[in-house]
């Protein structure tokens, strides 16, 4: 691929696809005629966003935009521009904005709509080099605070900023610090909660791996504010890269005396150690986390007394989440007023979301609070792949609930998500499309909480298991309408009678899918059908008339249940079929659909 010139032809769906293919063919044949075929690369790409202007061409080098190109113009472009290097003025598009759009990262919506505070250094600095963090004003906030502030001023600034805990609870970080500061004790502790356990959330990992020093600096600031001289980072052992980089970062900070004794000659001492967690979901709860650090089984205990009064080894302790901490140095560099000006009235700042599931741009995005779910999913996330229909989005992982199409325009903040029956949680956002069975999704999350329940309270230990058994029955086609009512009763009871957040929120996925997709539950129970074609016992795959006989399905079938000659419509032997769905995935023309079982008789 060492062509001198590259011609990019917009082949997006909005412009007629046919037109672009015709153009490409015209270019190909003309270039062959003038013997330049080897010098020019013709690339058919996705939409350039200028579709109302008709077929768009971009010629590199030089990034010349041509709009409204027809077959007749091909000759002129080839002769004048490609051969002689003189762009055809008549067809050129001169909108400067449109040209920039292709060039700059910030012009791509994915970056343009984001505001990076917690992730400001991720992907920018070398996490293994403290100097690069310092080059980005690292440890400046800590230095300024130690030289010229009192602990109470620091706490006041935090309260003023309105920062709320990003781990899920959403409690005011400043107030938390105030409680810990007010406790009188000879020894206090700061803990960083890096036990990120939500399936589908990985923002804490990204911060620890990409910018570990911001967490260390924030912990030292917190230590100064509440009067602690020892910090612990409780991080899952499943994050080996993060652990390694944290150890390295702590060593580097110690070598420069940014941790250790008498930091900045202020008489303030602060050290940080790492404690590895075994990856138990319940240890994300602060009292369970503290028990785990102390060497006991990770089980939550009754609050009060809160950790701010009696925490680690009975001493006042402040626990903050990684993402919360990553925001803190910036708040002190730019001021609480600046931070407060971002986001909504009661939820200031930004939130990082981990986009996953059926979405084009899986990854981490950080947006100001108040951005709508639709903007996050469609504009930043790029929408649903394979032209499928959006069905629901699950926020808050196994503790949250699903949000449907009609609520997509809700601005994201702590209260709004709670009102929708979901929650902010740690910021996992799993998008589901029409191929997802909501009963199966609810069962998946419940499966997770059944495994992760610590077993202390009966409602959570036994109740979630009973709920899962009911869901299993429904998915296998053995369910009754009474089972659905039973699910609701059990769910409410578990919510009301569990001790910690895990149990109180465990039924949420079931209750919210029951609320929004009750008809799917009913279809499973009454019609014995899985509308999405996921639950194996209730699905029946059928090959439809538009089969092109490519034989891909037959080759992918693990049990040889598909027969048919090439170029002829294939058939599935229902008796042999195990309903794995491999054929459906492999079909290039979507000719395989899942029909409800009840239709099997009529077919």
């Amino acid at each position, binding site marked *: 691929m060492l062509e001198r010139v590259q011609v990019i032809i917009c082949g997006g769906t909005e412009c007629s696809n046919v037109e672009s293919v015709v153009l490409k063919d015209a270019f190909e044949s003309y270039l062959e005629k003038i013997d330049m075929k080897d010098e020019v690369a013709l690339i058919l790409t996705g939409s350039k966003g200028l579709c109302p202007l008709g077929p768009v061409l971009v010629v590199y080098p030089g990034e010349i935009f041509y709009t409204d190109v027809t077959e007749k113009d091909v000759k002129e472009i080839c002769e004048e521009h490609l051969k002689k290097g003189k762009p055809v003025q008549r067809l050129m598009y001169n909108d400067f904005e449109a040209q920039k759009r292709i060039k700059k990262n910030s012009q791509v919506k994915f970056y343009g709509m984001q505001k990076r505070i917690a992730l400001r250094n*991720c992907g920018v600095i070398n996490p293994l080099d403290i100097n690069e963090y310092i080059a980005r004003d690292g440890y400046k906030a800590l230095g300024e605070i130690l030289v010229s502030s009192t602990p109470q001023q620091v706490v006041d600034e935090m309260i003023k900023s309105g920062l709320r805990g990003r781990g899920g609870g959403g409690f005011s970080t400043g107030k938390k610090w105030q409680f810990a500061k007010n406790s009188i004790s000879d020894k206090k502790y700061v803990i960083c909660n890096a036990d990120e356990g939500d399936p589908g959330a990985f923002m804490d990992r990204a911060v620890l791996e990409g910018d570990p020093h911001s967490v260390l600096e924030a912990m030292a600031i917190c230590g100064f504010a509440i009067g602690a001289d020892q910090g612990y980072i409780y991080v899952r052992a499943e994050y080996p890269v993060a652990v390694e980089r944290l150890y390295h970062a702590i060593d580097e900070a110690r070598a420069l005396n940014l941790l250790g004794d008498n930091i900045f000659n202020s008489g303030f001492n602060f050290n940080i150690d790492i404690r590895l967690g075994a990856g138990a979901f319940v240890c994300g709860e602060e009292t369970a986390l503290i028990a785990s650090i102390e060497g006991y089984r990770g089980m939550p205990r009754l609050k009060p007394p809160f950790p701010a009064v009696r925490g680690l080894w009975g001493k006042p302790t402040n626990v903050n989440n990684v993402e919360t901490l990553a925001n803190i140095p910036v708040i002190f560099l730019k001021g609480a007023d600046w931070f407060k000006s971002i986001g909504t009235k009661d939820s200031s700042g930004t939130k990082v979301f981990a986009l996953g599931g059926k979405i084009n741009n*899986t990854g981490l995005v950080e947006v100001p609070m108040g951005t709508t779910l639709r903007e996050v999913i469609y504009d930043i996330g790029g929408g649903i792949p394979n032209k499928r229909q959006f069905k629901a989005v699950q926020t808050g992982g196994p503790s949250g609930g699903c949000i449907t199409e009609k609520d997509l325009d809700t601005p994201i903040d702590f209260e709004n998500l709670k009102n929708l029956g979901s929650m902010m949680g740690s910021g996992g956002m799993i998008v589901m499309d029409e191929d997802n069975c909501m009963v199966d999704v609810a069962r998946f999350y419940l499966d997770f909480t059944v495994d992760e329940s610590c077993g202390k309270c009966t409602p959570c230990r036994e109740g979630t298991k009973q709920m899962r058994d009911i869901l299993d029955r429904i998915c296998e086609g053995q369910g009754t309408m009474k089972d659905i009512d039973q699910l609701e009763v059990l769910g409410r009871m578990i919510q009301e009678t569990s001790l910690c957040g895990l149990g109180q929120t465990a039924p949420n996925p079931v209750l919210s899918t029951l609320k929004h997709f009750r008809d799917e539950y009913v279809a499973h129970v009454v019609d014995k059908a899985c509308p999405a074609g996921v639950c194996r016992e209730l699905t029946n795959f059928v090959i439809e008339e538009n089969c092109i006989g490519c034989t891909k399905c037959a080759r992918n079938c693990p049990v040889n249940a598909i027969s048919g000659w090439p170029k002829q419509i294939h058939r599935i032997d229902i008796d042999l079929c195990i309903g794995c769905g491999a054929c459906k995935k492999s079909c290039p023309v979507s000719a395989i659909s899942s029909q409800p079982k009840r239709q099997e008789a009529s077919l």
Partner: protein
Amino acid sequence: MKTLDELKKLRDKSLDQMMMRGINNSFRIQVGLGTCGIASGAKPILSVFLSEVEEKKLDNVSVTQVGCMGECAYEPMAEIIDQHGQSFVYCNLTEATAKEVIERHVINQEPVLRLLLTTKKG
């Protein structure tokens, strides 16, 4: 670290190093090496960049690793920042295309547009 002045001096020095000030025609290559990047094969890409820079004696290029850039779906990624601060994000790199990027962008000063994230995302 004893005073704010000391920190500021270190900051200025590090910033100069990071921006490669005083080096003509400089390039900083940042390879995304978060768990997501490593899982999709960023480590061999980093080695390709390092060995190419060493082999071709490119003194104006610094290769460094960074964390996750957020676009996990497009890993392995590398960002090239030129002396004007213009950033080019290359995505879905392979060992062959990484070599091509060095050859064409860094040596011949011509960005490989078809591999850019902005081209792929449109």
